C-alpha cells in the first residue's frame, strides 16, 4: 500500500511546562517499496511514528494517507474500523491478554466481527507453529518474553493484513528464531502485505527494500538497501 505522510508534528507537554517535540516530519512517502525499515536511537520517536501512521496516536497536525484513505481525516470509529480491516501490529511490549490461552489470544481479532473463531482456528494453529510458539493451550502469563513475542507476531499475522507493523519483532529472540520470524514476515510480504518494521537487527534491516532513520523526531533520507 502506498503511504503519503505530510508535515507530521507531535509534541507532549513536559512536567516543567516546556514542550517536547517527538515527531517533526516534513514528508514521508513510500510508493514502490513493499518492505520498509525504521531505525534510530531509543526515544527517537519510532513507536510514536508507528502509532501515528496507524491512527492510534492523534497528531498535533499533518496528514497520513494510505492508498486512497486519509486516516487523519477519519472519525475515531472509522479509523478503528480501517485499522481492524487493514492493519496488523506487533507491539514492542507484546500486549497479550493474561487469563487467556495462547490460542485465545491469537484468535481474539476474529471475535471482533461476524466471522467468529471457528473458521480461523486452523489458520491460527498454522501461524502458531510457523512462529514456533509453545502448546497453544498454555496461558500467556506463563510464557517467557521470547515466547510472548512469537504469540504477538502470530496474532498480527492471523488475518493476513494488507499492512503489517512490527515494533522490534526480533528483539527478544535468539539468532535462529529471529531468522525464522524474519522469514515469516517476508513470506507475508511476498503475498502482498506491506511490511513496516522498527528494528535494530542488522540481518533483518539488510533484507528490506528501504529503511529510514529517525533521530529526535526528524527523519533522515531513506538509505536504499544494498
Amino acid at each position, binding site marked *: 500500500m502506498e503511504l503519503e505522510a505530510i508535515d507530521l508534528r507531535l509534541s507532549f507537554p513536559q512536567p516543567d511546562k516546556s514542550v517536547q517535540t517527538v515527531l517533526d516530519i516534513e514528508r514521508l512517502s513510500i510508493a514502490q517499496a513493499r518492505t520498509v525499515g525504521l531505525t534510530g536511537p531509543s526515544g527517537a520517536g519510532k513507536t*510514536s511514528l508507528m*502509532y501515528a501512521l*496507524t491512527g*492510534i*496516536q*492523534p497528531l498535533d497536525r499533518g496528514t497520513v494517507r494510505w492508498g486512497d484513505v486519509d486516516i487523519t481525516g477519519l472519525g475515531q*470509529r472509522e479509523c*478503528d*474500523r*480501517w*485499522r*481492524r*480491516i487493514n*492493519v496488523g*501490529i506487533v*507491539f514492542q*511490549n507484546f*500486549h497479550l*491478554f*493474561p*487469563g*487467556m490461552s495462547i490460542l*485465545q489470544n491469537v484468535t*481474539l*481479532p476474529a*471475535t*471482533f*466481527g*461476524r466471522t*467468529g*473463531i471457528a473458521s480461523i482456528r486452523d489458520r491460527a494453529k498454522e501461524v502458531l507453529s510457523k512462529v514456533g510458539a509453545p502448546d497453544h493451550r498454555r496461558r500467556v*502469563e506463563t510464557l517467557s518474553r521470547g515466547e510472548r513475542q512469537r504469540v504477538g507476531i502470530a496474532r498480527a499475522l492471523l488475518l493476513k493484513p494488507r499492512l503489517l507493523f512490527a515494533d522490534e519483532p526480533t528483539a527478544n529472540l535468539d539468532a535462529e528464531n529471529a531468522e525464522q520470524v524474519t522469514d515469516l514476515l517476508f513470506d507475508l510480504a511476498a503475498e502482498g502485505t506491506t511490511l513496516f518494521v522498527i528494528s535494530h537487527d542488522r540481518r533483518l534491516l539488510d533484507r528490506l527494500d528501504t529503511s529510514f532513520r529517525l533521530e529526535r523526531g526528524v527523519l533522515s533520507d531513506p538509505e536504499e538497501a544494498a
Partner: protein
Amino acid sequence: MNPIPVTFSDMRTNAAGIIAIVALIAVAVALGVGISAQERAVRQGGNVAAEPFDVLIGAPGSTTQLLFSSVYLQPAALDLVDGEVLRELAGREGVASFTPIAFGDNYRGMPIIGTTAGFTTLDDTAPLVEGTTFAGLYEAVVGHDVELALGDEFTPVHGMIETGEEQVEHEHDHVHYHVVGRMARRFSPWDQAILVPVESVWSVHGLGTGHEEPSSIALAMATEEGGRAEGDEHEDERAAEHDHGGPVALGPPWSALHIPGVPAIAVTPASIRDAYVLRTEFRNDPRTTAIFPAEVLLELYALIGDASTVLAVVSVATQVLVVGAVLLAVFSALQQKREALGVLRALGAPRVYVFLAVWLHVVLMVLVGSALGVALGWGVALGISAILAERTGLVLPVLITGKEIGLAGVLVAAGMILAAIPAVTVYRQSVSEVLRS
C-alpha cells in the same frame, strides 16, 4: 461479535476480588429476599393456624394473650370465663357450634386441652386420620404429630409446660387417659396437642363434669370446703368407675348447678352477621371479652409490617451500598484492565465490543450474585421457618414469589444501567498513552 473471552479473562486474573464482590451482592440480596419471604410465611402460617377460630371468647384482659394461648397454645395463666356463659351459649341463636378450650395440664410437654368431640374434627370438616373421637371421659384424641399410638395410655401432669418454674407440678397419678384417635394436620401448635373431653379436665381438678350428677356436685362442694385428701380419694373412685365404662354425658349442654369456668371458648357463628352480633354482645358483657382472631392477627401483622418495612429499607440501603461497591471495584479493575482495553482498541475492536466486555463484567457479577442471593435468602427463610416450626409448632410456608424475584431484579437492572458508566469511560482514555503504561 463475542467479547465474552475478554470478560472471562478479566475475571480469571482477579478471581478473589470477583468472588468477594459476588458474595457481597449475594448477602445483600439474601437479606431483602429473606425478610420479604419470611414475613409472608409468618402471615400465611398465622392465618392457617387461626382458621378454626372464628370468634374467641375469654375473660376480660389481654386479647392478644387470649389469641396466642388459644390459637398458638402459648402457655399463660388466663382468667377463667364464668361457666354460666357456656350454659347461655348452648341455647343461643346464631351459634352453629361452640367449644370450651381448657388448658392447664400437659403430658411430656404436650398440652392437654379440654374440649368437645366436635372440635377434634372441626365439626366434621377435618376428619380424623385414624381412630375415633372420644366418647368416654378418659379417652383422648391426639394432634397429628403427637408421638402416641392408638391404645397408648398416659397420665397428665399439672401445669402447662413440663418444667414449670412457678407452679409446683404434680402428676394426677390416679388418672389414665387412653388414646382413641388422631386429628388431621392443622399446621399449627395444635398438631402437638392432646385433646380430651373438657369434662375430664374439670373432673381431674375436682370440679365435677359440668353435667347434672349429684355425686359430682357433692364432690365439688367437698373440694372447695373440705380437705383435698378427701377430694382426691373421691376422684380416684370416680376415675376408676369411668374407666370401667360408666356412662358419662359429654359435650354441651352442661346443666350442672355450678358449671366450672374455662379460659377460652371458641364459637362458630351461623353467619357472618351473627359473628359481629356475638362479638359485640360478649364484648359488652362485663364477664367476657370477644375477638376475631383473624382481625387481631391483622393488627399484629401491621406491627410486623412496620418492622419489616424498616428492615426492607435497611436491605435496600445495603443493596445501594453494594452497587456502589460494585462500581468501585469495577473502576479499580478498569484501572488494572486499562492496558487490555487499550490493546483491544489498538487492534481495532468496535466500540460495542469494548463496551460489552466491560459491561458484561459488571452485569455477570450482579446477575450471579443476585441469583445466589435469592437462593441464599430462600434457604435462610426455610431454615428460620424450620426452627420456628420446631419451637412453636407453626408451619410457616416459605415461598419465593414475583415480589422477591422483583427485589433481585431491581438490583440487576440498577447494575445494568450503572455498568454503562465504566463501559463509557473507557472511551475517554487515550489509547497510545494506555499502551505506554
